[in-house]
């Protein structure tokens, strides 16, 4: 009797063990698959970084993954040849200013849209979505002509200046940022502000001191989104003759295309990714929280 009980339990535990083993193996297989996909996703970036230390010949002829010797001077050569400081500084100024202004304005509008059922809110929302459906090529020339007209009649320098680009980008990214912000504000409970207002705060104070700090991750994800998008904008900067990084790189590719200085382009690309990557790593925890809260609501 006693023996059979033991036998039964061993058989059972054996089955459980088998089950566990299977689960363990399946989940390791999943790990492996994930690792493979991540490797494939990262390979282009790693390839770029390594390439920035190679010589031009190694790019086209050599088939080795690593450079024969590490050419750190590619970076300084690139910096001078492309006149990179000029473009880099312009881009930093334009993107920072745009991000700051857009984030503040989008928070206010997003809050209003999330909280108040004011007459016209529906039309306003529809208008925001409508802005996303217009192809850039349709309003590029009108914008250029309008900016030219403003420059010629009001003497506000909007063409070829960082100021003009900032004005353009603020208008450009405000609607979509607001949309991201709105979903975030909707997740913040309304009681807190009401409590503050019972305690004598004005609606604006309640917004500024109570809601905004709570909206931190949402604000940060919007800010990163705006910075990244502005950092990446080529077409309008090119047409408005603003000397941002994408425009500079494009000119460099065009001029040096025949020479094919791949190593210099790689070095430039690494430098272009660095600021945004740095910002991303510093803020990524809150960023992911903000992004995902917006996605879920």
């Amino acid at each position: 009797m006693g023996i059979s009980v033991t036998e039964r339990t061993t058989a059972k535990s054996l089955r459980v063990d088998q089950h566990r083993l299977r689960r363990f193996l399946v989940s390791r297989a999943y790990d492996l698959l994930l690792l493979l996909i991540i490797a494939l996703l990262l390979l282009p970036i790693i390839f770029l970084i390594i390439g920035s230390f190679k010589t031009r010949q190694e790019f086209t002829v050599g088939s080795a993954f690593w450079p024969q010797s590490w050419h750190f001077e590619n970076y300084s050569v690139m910096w001078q040849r492309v006149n990179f400081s000029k473009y880099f500084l312009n881009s930093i100024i334009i993107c920072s200013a745009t991000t700051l202004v857009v984030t503040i304005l989008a928070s206010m509008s997003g809050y209003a849209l999330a909280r108040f059922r004011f007459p016209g809110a529906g039309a306003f929302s529809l208008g925001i979505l409508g802005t996303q459906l217009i192809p850039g090529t349709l309003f590029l020339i009108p914008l250029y002509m309008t900016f030219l007209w403003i420059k010629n009649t009001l003497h506000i320098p909007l063409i070829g200046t960082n100021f003009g680009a900032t004005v353009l980008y603020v208008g450009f990214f405000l609607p979509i940022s607001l949309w991201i912000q709105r979903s975030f504000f909707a997740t913040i409970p309304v009681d807190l502000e009401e409590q503050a207002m019972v305690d004598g705060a004005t609606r604006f104070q309640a917004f500024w001191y109570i809601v905004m700090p709570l909206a931190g991750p949402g604000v940060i994800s919007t800010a990163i989104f705006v910075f990244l998008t502005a950092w990446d904008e080529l077409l309008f900067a090119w047409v408005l003759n603003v000397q941002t990084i994408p425009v500079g790189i494009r000119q460099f590719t065009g001029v040096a295309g025949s020479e094919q200085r791949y190593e210099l382009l790689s070095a430039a690309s690494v430098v272009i990714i660095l600021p945004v990557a740095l910002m991303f790593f510093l803020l990524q925890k809150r960023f992911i929280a903000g992004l995902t809260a917006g996605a879920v609501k």
Partner: protein
Amino acid sequence: MAASPHSKPSLWRRMKQHSLAYKFIAPTVVAMFLIHFIPMVQGLYLSLLDVRLTTLTLYLKAPFVGFKYYREVILALLFGSDSSRISGMLNATGNTIEYTFWTNVATLTLGMILALLLNRKFRWRGIARTLVLLPWVVPTFVTGTIFNFIWLQQGGLANRILVDWLGIIDQPITWLIGPNSLYALVIATVWRGLPFATIMMLASMQVIPLDLYEAAELDGANGLQRFRYITLPLLKPILATLVLFGVINGLYGGYNIAVQMFGGGTAFAGEYADLLVPAITRQTWERHLYGFGAASSVLLMILLLVFVGIWYRVFRSSLRTEGGS
């Protein structure tokens, strides 16, 4: 939240009640009109004018040609055209639709697999999530540069992996010229867009209550069934959003990547991979056919609206549940 009384006050009173809301949205309204809608209306009118390099200074006073450009395109659609400008545009339209289809299918499928893999309990989950997001930090024009190197026939990473390392094929593939060039563009786009889609789907998966899965498991549902009947329906709202973004990005996008990937800075990718926005931009700014460019843009917008209409019909039900907030 302003409580709405039972007896509806007049519109004016309700508007006064919300004066702060109007102040808060005022900057956005101004931006929407100045940077989006007024230029768009000008653009619509421009598409009816014969604006070229010689008449650009006249701008809106340029000779009126009505629907000339539209007629050209529609006639070409029906009967074909011997004008290289028009046939190039039609060719780009086909490419763009193909590009939009493949980028969306690939991004959503791979994003779903990746999100499912990340939505498990394992030790390096946090770092895996961060690493997956990395390509998203790479600007699109840099993505173009990177993939220009990757597709190089001699010494490019793709051919190195396929020929030298894995030995799947013996001859290096020509990626950037000929029929492969569209897929070269699709792969570059998917690489850049995958992280965003993945993180969005992962976020939606993480709020699905676990007891739903436990109950299903007790009822004997296997993994595939649990995915089919629990995960997928609950992901529909985020899928709707991602498809909408994907369609907009597909039809309006590709410019930055194409400019850098195909080199030369002209964004001409050859007949197999030329997309609409690069094609329109070329007609507008290199050939100075501003009116024709505007008309093509309008037609592109109509194409997008058709797609959005289809999208709306497909996802209408899932939008309603999302609108509850």
